[in-house]
C-alpha cells in the first residue's frame, strides 16, 4: 500500500509541494482534507520534494491535507459502457449514471508509429455542403473551426455530432457554459444520437486543471475505439480555453512565457493532442474537429497561429456561415476526385463566381451602377448563401452538387461558368442528355 503524507510545504496556485521520497513522475495522488478531496498529479520532482497539481484547485486546502500516492497515471475507461454517458474533466460521471471502471487505459499514451499510418482515402460525410462540397473532411484529418464568441459554433458541432457518417463521436468540452452543455446534451438526446456518443465536459465553473485533461481523456478513448476498428470523430470546444488553462498553470509553475504569456511549449502541447488523429493501416481512424475562438478575431494570436501550423487546414465560421475564402481542407484533394465527376470542377467554378459576387457587393457599396452581369452575380450569390451556405441546410453531397448546378443555371449561361462542355451536357438542368 502506498504511504500517506500529511504536510504540504508549499501552496501556490494549483500546485502544492509535499516531502515524499517515493513519488514517481506524473503519477496520481489523492489529496484529502476535512472539506473535500481531489486527485492531483506529480508535475515535478526535486530531491525528496514532489510538486503536485491539484485538479480541484488549491482553494481552501489546509497544509495538513493528506496526500496518498496511487502509483499510477491518470486513467479512463474505454469500455463500450461509456457510450451515452457524460463525464467531467476528472473522469467522474457528470450524469447520474454509475462510475465505470472496466477496460481502463492510461491517458496521454505514446505516439503512433508513422509506419503504421496510411494515406487517408475516405471522405467523412457530414451533410453540410460547405464541408462536403467545398472543404471535404477526410478521415484522420484534424481541422480547427476558427471563430469568435457569439458565432454558432456549438450548433455546428451539434449538427456534426448528429449527422457525420462515423461510428462513434467523442465530445470534449472545455470551459463550456453550463447552458451550452445542457443544450448539447438535450440536442443529442432528442435526436437519439447519445447512444453513439461519449462526452467529457469541463464547464467554466469547474477547476482549471480539469480543463487540461479533457482532450487527453477524449483522445485516449477515441484511440482505443479506433484500434477496435471504429471510425471515430472527436469534437472539441474550445481549444482556446485549453490553451489558456495551460498558460495559467505554466505561470503558476513560474515558467518563462514566450509569447503573450503562453508557455514556450504551446505548439508541442497542442500538437500532442491533434496528432492523435490517425488512419491506422489495420484498424479504424480518428478525425478531429476543434473549435478555436480567436481572441480579438486575430488569426495571428498565438493560439490560432500555433493551431494553424499543426492542423490540416481550417474552417472559418463567420457571420453564421462557413466562410468560403480562407477555409481550406488541405486533404480534400485526396478524396474529392473519386466522389462524382463534377465535384471538383463545379466547386471551383462556383467559388470563382462567388468571388465575383463579393466584388460586385463592394462595387455596389461604393455606389457603382450595376450591370446586367452584376445583377446576375447578385442573384447567384444570394441563392448560394441561402441554399448551400446556411448552416440550416442539410443535404447529402450529391444533392448539394445538384443544387449547385441549379444555382448556376438560374443565373448564367452555360458558357459563362467556364465549365467543360462535356460536364455541362451531363449535368446542366433542363439540357437533354
Amino acid at each position, binding site marked *: 500500500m502506498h504511504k500517506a503524507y500529511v504536510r504540504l510545504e508549499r501552496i501556490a496556485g494549483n500546485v502544492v509541494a509535499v516531502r515524499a*521520497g*517515493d*513519488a*514517481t*513522475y*506524473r*503519477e496520481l495522488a489523492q489529496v484529502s482534507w476535512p472539506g473535500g478531496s481531489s486527485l492531483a498529479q506529480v508535475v*515535478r*520532482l*526535486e*530531491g*525528496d520534494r514532489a510538486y503536485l497539481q491539484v485538479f480541484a484547485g488549491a482553494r481552501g486546502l489546509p497544509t495538513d491535507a493528506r496526500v496518498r500516492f496511487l502509483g499510477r*497515471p491518470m486513467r479512463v475507461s474505454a469500455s463500450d459502457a461509456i457510450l451515452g454517458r457524460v463525464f467531467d474533466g476528472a473522469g467522474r460521471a457528470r450524469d447520474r449514471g454509475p462510475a465505470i471502471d472496466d477496460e481502463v487505459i492510461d491517458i496521454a*499514451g*505514446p*505516439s*503512433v*508509429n*508513422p*509506419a*503504421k*499510418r*496510411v*494515406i*487517408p482515402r475516405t471522405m467523412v460525410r457530414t451533410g453540410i455542403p460547405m464541408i462536403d462540397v467545398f472543404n471535404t473532411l477526410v478521415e*484522420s484529418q484534424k481541422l480547427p473551426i476558427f471563430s469568435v464568441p457569439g458565432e454558432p459554433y456549438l450548433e455546428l458541432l451539434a449538427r456534426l455530432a448528429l449527422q457525420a457518417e462515423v461510428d462513434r463521436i467523442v465530445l470534449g468540452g472545455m470551459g463550456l457554459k453550463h447552458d451550452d452543455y445542457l443544450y448539447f446534451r438535450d440536442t443529442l438526446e432528442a435526436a437519439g444520437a447519445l447512444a453513439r456518443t461519449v462526452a467529457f465536459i469541463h464547464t467554466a465553473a469547474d477547476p482549471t486543471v480539469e480543463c487540461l485533461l479533457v482532450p487527453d481523456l477524449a483522445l485516449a478513448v477515441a484511440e482505443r475505439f479506433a*484500434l477496435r476498428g471504429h471510425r471515430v470523430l472527436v469534437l472539441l470546444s474550445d481549444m482556446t480555453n485549453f490553451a489558456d488553462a495551460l498558460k495559467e498553470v505554466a505561470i503558476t509553475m513560474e*515558467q*518563462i*512565457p*514566450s*509569447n503573450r504569456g503562453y508557455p*514556450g*511549449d504551446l*505548439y*508541442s502541447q497542442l*500538437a*500532442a493532442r491533434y*496528432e*492523435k488523429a*490517425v488512419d*491506422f493501416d489495420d*484498424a479504424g481512424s480518428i478525425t478531429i474537429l476543434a473549435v478555436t475562438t480567436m481572441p480579438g478575431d486575430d488569426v*495571428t*494570436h*498565438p493560439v490560432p*497561429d*500555433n493551431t*494553424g*501550423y*499543426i492542423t*490540416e*487546414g*481550417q474552417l472559418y465560421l463567420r457571420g453564421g456561415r462557413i466562410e468560403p*475564402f*480562407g477555409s*481550406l481542407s*488541405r*486533404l480534400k*484533394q485526396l478524396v474529392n476526385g473519386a466522389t462524382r465527376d463534377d465535384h471538383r470542377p463545379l466547386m471551383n467554378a462556383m467559388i470563382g463566381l462567388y468571388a465575383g459576387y463579393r466584388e460586385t457587393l463592394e462595387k455596389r457599396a461604393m455606389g457603382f451602377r450595376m450591370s446586367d452581369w452584376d445583377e446576375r452575380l447578385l442573384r447567384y450569390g444570394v441563392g448560394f448563401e441561402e441554399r448551400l451556405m446556411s448552416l440550416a441546410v442539410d443535404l447529402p453531397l450529391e444533392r448539394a452538387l445538384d443544387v449547385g448546378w441549379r444555382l448556376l443555371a438560374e443565373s448564367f449561361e452555360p458558357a459563362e461558368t467556364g465549365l467543360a462542355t462535356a460536364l455541362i451536357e451531363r449535368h446542366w438542368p433542363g439540357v437533354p442528355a
Partner: protein
Amino acid sequence: MPNVGRIVAVSGPLITASFNEPVVQNEVGYALLDGLRLKAELIRVRGDYADLQVFEDTIGLYVGGQVEFTGEMLSAELGPGLLGRVVDGLQNPLFELAAASGHFLPRGRYLDPLDRERRWPFTPSVTVGDAVLAGDALGTVPEGQFLHRVMVPFDLEGWWTVRAIAAAGDHTVADVIATIDDDRGHTREVRMLQRWPVKRPLRAYRERLRPEEPLVTKIRIVDTLFPVARGGTFCVPGPFGAGKTVLQQLMSRHAEVDVVVIAACGERAGEVVETLREFPELIDPRTGRSLMERTVIVCNTSSMPVAAREASVYTAVTIAEYYRQMGLDVLLLADSTSRWAQALREVSGRLEEIPGEEAFPAYLESVIAAFYERGGLVSLRDGSTGSVTIGGTVSPAGGNLEEPVTQATLKVVGAFHGLSRERSDARRYPAIDPLESWSHYLGVVSRSDVAFVRALLRAGHEVEEMMKVVGEEGTALDDFVRYLQAEYVDAAYLQQDAFDDVDAATGAERQSAVFGELVRLLRTPLRLDDKDGARRLFARMTQATKEWNRCPWGEASFDAARERLRALVAEVSPDA
C-alpha cells in the same frame, strides 16, 4: 563497471543526476526504469550534478533512480544500408520497430539502424602496405545506384598503414574488412559500420570550396530568380499553409542530386506518411529506379518527444555529410527548423537559463549558424567533390519575419525564399514572393534576362499599387501594359502547377529556352490601341504559355505550342 549516477530531480524531459566518476558533456546516459533503459543526453554539469535531456517520455522516473553514463557522445551509425531507410530522430528504424512493437512507439526500445545480417559484396580498393588517412576509401560495396565507399574511420588522426584487407566477397557491416596501424603502435580493426557523434561536423575532406554551380530544383522561380547552389544553403519562411512543405516535397522529388535526406522535424506525421508511402512507387527519371532508393527519411514528428526532435536534425545532417564523403551531392531538407529551435527553447526553459527574445535561448543564433555551416561543397582526397546543400523551412510566429528564428537564419543562408500569405491566398503557387526573396547564387538562365524581368516585376508592382489609388482609368496605357506584362510573367512562368506531371518539374535547359523566349517576346514592341485589347492579348498569351508549359520538352507538341505563342505576339507587332 559502468559509471552510475542517481536521479535527484525530474521536470518534463529534463532530469538531474548526481555522479561520482567523471562525465563528459553531451555523452549519452540511460535512465533505468523497470527494465527499460531511457536514452538521454548530458547537456549541463553543475558541481556534482549533471542535467540530462531524456529522449523519451519521463513518466514514472523517480528520485533515487539510476542513470548509467556511457562516456560516448550521441552518435549515428554509418554504413551501407542507410539509403531508403525511415528512422526516428535517434535513428530507430520505424518499419522494423512497427514489426516488433505494433502501433505505438514504445519507449526505451532501440533497434539497430543498420541490418546486421545483410551481406554486401565488398570490393577492396587498397592493398596491404598502402598508406591511408581518415575518410579514404578502403573498398566499395554497391548500394542502390551508387558505389558506397567503405572508409577509414573518421576519428583517426595522421597516416595509417593497411596491414590486412578483405578479399572481394560478401560481408556484413559488422565484419572486420581491414586492419590498419600507425607508427605510434596503435592498431585498428575497420568494419563497414562506423559511428560518428552527430553534433560534430564530419571534416574528413581536403578543403571546402565555394558553392558556385547551380543545384537545379526544377522549380522555375527558384532556379531562374532565386537559385540554390550545390553546397549552398537556403531557407523557406512562411506563415502556415503558405506551401513550405509542398515546396520541399517537390524539391525532394525533382532536385538534381544524388541523395536526399528529409528531416521531418516536429511537423505532421501525415506528411511523412505521404512521402514514405509514395516514394517507393515513384520512379526517379534520372536513374529509372525508385525514388526511395536515393532517399533517407529522419522523422521526429510533433508529438514525439521534444529532446529527440532536437537530435533529429543532427542525425540527418550527419547522414548527409557521410554520403558527401563518397563524392556525392546530397540535399538535406529540414521541415521545420522553427520546431527544432522550439525544442531548444523548451529545454532551455527547464534549465532555467536566462532567456533571450521570445524566450529563445541566447545561443539560438550560434546554434542555427553552426547547423547551416555543415552544408558545403568539398573536395576529397581522391580529387572528387561532394556537397551537402541545406534547405530549411521556418515557421515564424504569426507569419512575422521579425522573429528570432527567421532573423538568425537569414544571417547565415545564401538564399531566401520567402512565402507570402497574399500569394498563397491568391493560389499563386509556389507562393515565393518575387519582390522580397533573394539569392547570392548563380542561376540557370541569362543574367541580363533576369535583371530585365526583375525590373519588370518591380515596375508592374508599382503600377499595381498606383492603380489602387487612381483606378484603371487614371493609368496610362504604357503603365498598364507594364502591369500586364508583370502579371503575365508571374502567371505563365513563376507559377507552376505542382499537380501537372510536366509542369511540376522544369529542367535547366528548358528554363533557359522558355525564359529566353518570354523575354524576347516581352521586348518585342507591341501595337496596342487600348487597355481592353492589351488585357485580351495578355490573357491569350498566358493561356498559350500555360499550355506550352504542359507540353513535354523535346516533343513536337512543345515546338508547336511555342509557335502558337509567337503567332499571338506577331499579330500585334508593328512589323507584322
